């Protein structure tokens, strides 16, 4: 059986990729995708911990489903915001959308 640490390593790599994407992309949609990756890395963790540590209760799986639901809602709202910004300013580059300062 594959040890737990492998899953955790995959999840950590996935999380780092997602974090990098969220921090480094200039495109808002790219940032959104990065966040999506980070959430899924967490999901892998949750499921892996459930399977290896507490298989008798379903907390890990239920938590993962909650996270997927939240991620879906987040993606919907995020995309709606991006569309709204694009309609107003004809750009999805986050560096150009910096009116909210000082």
């Amino acid at each position: 059986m594959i040890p737990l640490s492998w899953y955790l390593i995959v999840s950590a790599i996935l999380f780092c990729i997602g974090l990098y994407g969220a921090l480094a992309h200039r495109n808002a949609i790219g940032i959104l995708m990065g966040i999506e990756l980070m959430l899924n890395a967490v999901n892998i963790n949750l499921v892996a911990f459930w399977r290896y540590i507490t298989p008798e209760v379903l907390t890990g799986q239920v938590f993962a489903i909650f996270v997927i639901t939240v991620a879906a809602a987040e993606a919907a709202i995020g995309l709606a915001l991006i569309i709204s910004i694009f309609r107003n300013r004809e750009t999805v580059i986050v560096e150009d959308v910096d009116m909210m300062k000082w």
Partner: protein
Amino acid sequence: MEDLIRLVPLIPMVPLLTFALIAIYVRRYHKLSSYLAVAAIFVAWALSMVIVFSAVARMPHFAEEPAVHLTLLSIPTGGTTLDIGVQIDPLTVALLFMVPTVCLMIFIYSTGYMKGDPRYSRFFAYICLFTTGMLGLVVADNLLLLFICWEVMGLCSYLLIGFWYEKPSAMWAGLKAFITTRIGDVLLMLGMVLLYTQTGALRFETVFTGVEHLAETNPTLMYVIALLVFGGAVGKSAQFPLHVWLPDAMEGPTPVSALIHAATMVAAGVFLVARMFPIFAVLEGMPALTWVAAIGAITAFFASTIAIAQDDIKRVLAYSTISQLGYMIMALGIGGFVAAVFHLITHAFFKALLFLGSGSVIHGVNTNDMMEMGGLRKKMPYTFWTFLIGMLALAGVPPLAGFWSKDEILAVAFDRNLVVWVMGTLAALITAFYMTRQVFLTFMGEPRNKEIHAHESPPSMYVPLIILAIGAVLVGLLGVPAEVPVLGPLLGNNPFHHFLAAQFSQWQYVHLPHVGFNPAVMLISIAMAGAGIGLGYLVYGRKPLQAGQPDPLMRLGAVWTLLRNKYYIDEIYRATVIRGTIGLAGVLFRFDQGIIDAIVNLIGKLTERWSYVSRLFDTYVIDGIVNGVGRVTSAVGEELRFIQTGRVQNYMVIVVISVVLLMGVFLYL
């Protein structure tokens, strides 16, 4: 009786409510005010008569239980309660017979006398309050209520004596009456407070029981208390040396003079001494009573001599009142309690009659000066005949009221103290003389001032005169000594004496002397009355005084001048007491200005300085801290706001770094 006592509080309450009603609502309707006042006093009179007759029916029980009480109000004072209520005992009953009757007559008379006065309603409101004071004083069962009513009367006397305050003399007279009686009031209040501290009670019965113990433990204090209480009576009853206000009180409307002199004010002083008689009698050897007797005898004699030389018809009567009050006080001083109360009652009837009669004369001729009068007998028949009856009663002609009461006093005096008896007998002689002089000067001979056209007064004035005259004739018969042949047994063996003698039966230490009938004393007093009247006739009656002719008594020379100027007592007071008071007030004024004000100003200045320092501290320290906090906050915010870049990824970087740092903190610390 025990049920009827519930009516007693109403007796003073009815005039009190009428006073309020007139003063507040019906002031503008003069006629209605006077009707209301007369109705109120009539109700009080009717209630009093109910009480009097039921008390007479209860007479045998008074010996066992002299007083019936009704407590109206209980005021908790620490551990004890102060009960204020009313009581019925023989003394109260005796006064409830006299006061409302005389007041009723005076009220009816006033409706005629005061007609046309611009302050007609106010007058009736005041006399209602006045009557409330006297009735409340009579029925009170404790010293506090008595004192309150006493002060109400003091106020009313001030208001009524100065009723015509447009006249400066009336205004001053009111002031003089108020201040002079106030000296007595202060003494009384001190006495009352001392009594309360020593006996812990103000109700008469409790006080009388308490003083018995006090007289044994601290006789000096008891003596002082008795003299202080007597001081109150001296002021109120115008006894020497505080008698100066009463003659000046003649400035008030005549019904007020009658009210003050007969039924209320001055009677209150005698009533007080009678009421508090046990506290005078409790000391062995009765030194306090000796003072009472001395003051009374001196007043009785000297006031009567002053009355000889007065020309003002009302002033003669005023000095006569002082003298007769001296008689009563004197009687109390020698233990003649019953005689004093008897004289108080008979005197009220004939003195009210004389005052109202003189008012009627003044109403007819518009002057107070007897030298301007004369020959009024034919023009004012009702006034003349009733005045004559009053004069004979005062002079002590049998069988009128004044004779019996005066004789009883002199009988007691003869038995107890010969000096007092001599002074009283001389005063009786002089009284008969000056009253004869007054009647001759006023009513006999021919009019001395041709310009005065006298007229008889309206019925509302002479009907009360007639009723009071009947009273002046008959009231004395209540107290005819039992030993007088024929008359005594016929009139029930001196019912008044039997009734009143039960007053102090509860207190063993009060010995009321029982003085038998003394024909010699009675004959001497008849002779004195006859001699006084005869002398008066010789001087004024044989050759009636003509216009412009000087008073025949002026031949007395220096004595006349002395009497005419009332022994210069007013002048002496002005030179000593009044001047002294004003001088002292000046000194105190300068003390106030120089020292008290300086201290106050200094304190004010120091406070001002201190507040200046305090202000600086506030401005620079307190405000500095508050403003500093604000300024620092704003400066820090100014610097920190540049973190807010508006770039989402910057924020995210900060979040990531923070999370990593926090993880580091949690894992390694």
